[in-house]
């Protein structure tokens, strides 16, 4: 009997039968010799074409080639930096992949322990890596703003379909952000209240990641809050003008 045994985006548990027959098992699932596909995770089951997958709701960061990540330098070893990118694996960044030649022998001049960088995972397999690279646009040392840590499993939702969620937040709040696949978000906002609002939005997405219509709810929340923010700022400006007028009259 071939078929699908789950509802669209149903919460499934490990060992639950998902599909049987001509379907293909991908991330979050496993198949047995008899062609049946079972879930390997707690998550939301999805069918795309004839591939079955389970989007996890929890989990640590496991690097994948091509991932954009945000990390902290923990060690400078010869011409390598060791970078903490979260998760169980520590990454290496070779100077050749970060600096333009010729570079100084002591690479700690460029980036030192504690510096936060954005980079790309260029290789990772069972035997070696992960190795990072900073060649390309957008990869650099992050010097301002703040880093927010969220569960890496929620990152796809924070970015949204083709960046819909993150772009909406950026447009509404006029902030700069970079979202690393390893669950770290760099935020640079023009002022503290906006920054707090951005953090609130990201936390809200993290908490409600497996619910629908989230983009709309975030939009409403941000609209309301920005109005309040502008209101209070406007009031402050108004008060100041009154004060200064008083001073003038004195």
């Amino acid at each position, binding site marked *: 009997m071939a078929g699908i045994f789950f509802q669209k985006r149903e*919460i499934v548990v490990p060992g639950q039968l998902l599909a049987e027959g001509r379907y293909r098992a991908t991330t979050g699932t496993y198949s047995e010799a008899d062609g049946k596909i*079972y879930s390997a995770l707690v998550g939301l089951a999805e069918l795309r074409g004839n591939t079955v997958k389970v989007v996890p709701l*929890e*989990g640590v960061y496991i690097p994948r080639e091509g991932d954009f990540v945000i990390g902290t330098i923990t060690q400078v070893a010869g011409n390598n930096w060791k970078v903490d990118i979260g998760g169980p694996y520590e990454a290496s960044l070779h100077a050749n992949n970060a600096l333009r030649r010729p570079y100084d022998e002591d690479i700690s001049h460029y980036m030192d322990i504690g510096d936060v960088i954005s980079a790309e995972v260029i290789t990772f397999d069972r035997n070696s890596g992960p190795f990072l690279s900073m060649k390309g646009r957008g990869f650099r040392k992050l010097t301002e703003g703040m880093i927010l840590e969220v569960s890496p499993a929620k990152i796809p939702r924070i970015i949204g*379909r083709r960046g819909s969620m*993150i772009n909406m937040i950026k447009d509404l709040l006029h902030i700069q952000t970079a*979202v690393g696949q390893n669950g770290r978000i760099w935020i640079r906002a023009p002022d503290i209240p906006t920054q707090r609002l951005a953090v609130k939005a990201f936390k809200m997405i993290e908490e*409600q990641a497996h619910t629908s219509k989230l983009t709309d709810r975030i939009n409403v929340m941000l609209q309301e809050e920005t109005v309040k923010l502008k209101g209070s700022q406007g009031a402050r400006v108004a008060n100041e003008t009154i004060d200064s007028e008083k001073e003038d009259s004195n």
Partner: protein
Amino acid sequence: MSPETRPDFLITPEGLRLDGRRFDELRPIELQCGVLKTADGSASIRQGKTYILAAVYGPRELHPRHLTLGDRAFLRCVYRMATFSVPDRKKAAPSRREREISMVVANALEPALFLEEFPKTVIDVFIQVIQADGGTRCASITAASLALADAGIPMRSLVPAVAVGKADGKLIVDLGDEEDKYGQGDVPIAILPRTEELTLLQQDGYFTREEFLEAMQMGINACKYIHELQKDALKRAYAKRAPEGSDEEEEEDEGGSEYEDNLEADIGESDYDEEDER
């Protein structure tokens, strides 16, 4: 606390057990997921008077390094009993029994996990017995597998476990402390429910061949019931985290194509206003 005495009988003349259960009846079981905030995954189990917490951390970097396995994650289980978990104070030092149960629990869970997905790492499972009233090793396995699922670790299946024993010549499921102490035998069983593969099978006391086979069957049936409770607890934990206003109808309207989650098309980077310095 008065010294414990052996009860006159473990099976009452009416054919019930000390706490009024039938032979094949489990104690009331209450499972909960995500009870600890700092752990990557956690679960608690109440089974009669037994109360156990399980916490999972990882996969994470393994220290000490020499324990690293090149081809898979190392599953490190630590079973501990609180000093106040039993009527006579348990000594705080780790006992031989605790080390044995730690190992047994690790062995029972390992076949269910896809450890090969995380080479060179460790998955830590900490099991703390808060209150012990028999059947702690089985309850530990039940809770630990739930905590592992809660931590998002890929696994073939949840692992339910239960003990079957013999008291006054009758086979009984899910022993309480007195049945365990004064009964004639004890067989803890853990299974992978779908295939009925055994991952834990121990025995003390004497059983005839027929009794043993029947005990196994009783254990497997009880495990399957516990498995249903586990699945339910897991789904309940995640359903609860969904806020109100995201009811089913809405999801219907939205349709699959509208789902914003698109792993393939995701780009994790924003445009920077200024140019790259280097």
